[in-house]
């Protein structure tokens, strides 16, 4: 796997003074673009319909997010040409998503495990909401 990664990085950057490589634009047929667009519309309708039907709590957000991820992948792979372009661009994109995931996972880990050892320390959800309600009453 590391070999693959390495060759990917090296390949992408060998272009410097070596002259042209892969410069010819990869022209997709029009039908491809319209097919992708059609799929995006269908998925949009699907996600709206699912929402209107009203799935139970955890399922609703999971379905919505899966549909959104599929839509996003379609945009990235075809409209943004990532499927046909230099693999290194994909690597950059994946790395940015990886760091986004790190940010989410570690922060949520803290929030979700507060007060497990010392319940008094879980100041947020009880006190915060109480304060919030008092604040609302005053208004």
């Amino acid at each position, binding site marked *: 796997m590391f070999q693959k990664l390495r060759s990917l990085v090296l390949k992408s950057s060998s272009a410097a003074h070596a002259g042209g490589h892969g410069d010819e634009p990869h022209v997709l047929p029009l039908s491809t673009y319209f097919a992708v*667009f059609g799929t995006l519309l269908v998925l949009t309708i699907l996600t709206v319909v699912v929402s209107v039907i009203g799935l139970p709590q955890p399922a609703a957000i999971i379905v919505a997010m899966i549909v959104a991820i599929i839509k996003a992948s379609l945009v990235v792979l075809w409209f943004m040409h990532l499927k046909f372009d230099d693999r290194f661009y994909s690597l950059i*994109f994946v790395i940015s998503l990886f760091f986004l995931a790190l940010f989410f996972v570690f922060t949520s880990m803290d929030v979700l495990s507060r007060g497990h050892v010392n319940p008094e320390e879980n100041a947020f959800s009880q006190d915060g909401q109480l304060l919030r309600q008092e604040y609302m009453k005053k208004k």
Partner: protein
Amino acid sequence: MGQQSSSHASTAGHHHPKYLAHHFESMAQQNASGKLGMWLFLGQEVLFFSGLFLAYVLGRIFYPETFLAAHELLDWKLGALNTIFLLTSSLTMALAVRGAQVNSKPQMFYNILATLFLGGAFMVVKYIEYSHKFHDGLLPGHFFDAAKAMHNGAPANIPGAPAIFFAIYFVMTGTHGLHVLIGMGLMIWLLVRINRGDFNSENHVYLENVGLYWHIVDLIWIFLFPLLYLVR
């Protein structure tokens, strides 16, 4: 900059078009650099928005009932309409880039023009939505007005912290809207340059990069729409 390149041995045999900058050796190098730079910038955009999405996720963790109740006050039909506008604009943007690849000036010009209009339509709908929220007092933070909201048909008592929900709604859609506006500005610039005949199949990395930017704006909306308007 001075023209040093004549003394530059390795450029001697190269095709050297006028739009090739002095410090690059070839169009391939120049285009690849431009695109790599844009992808890095997009990676930056992803992490910029990550903070807002994380704020949303934690808001839901802290105030699940609020988020479920308050999102009902958003008009999913307008949200869906905007989704369609943006998806279509992504299509026209992709077609504009294709137009550049096949060296067709009208395809570039009219597709960018269409993208610009669709972006404008998105902003108009956004404006309508925002003015409803202003009218109903459904505003972020200190400006949230529960009494006004109730008067305008909001449920009597949204549990938890509705002001936080609307804060997140306005900050997320506002930041996204700002990106749309910047994109529209870039498109006006593109139209001028296309009209001037600056882009062709060899040299259109600017067009491609604005396209990439526009798609990422669309991408963010693809997640904002279900998270804010739909999820129950």
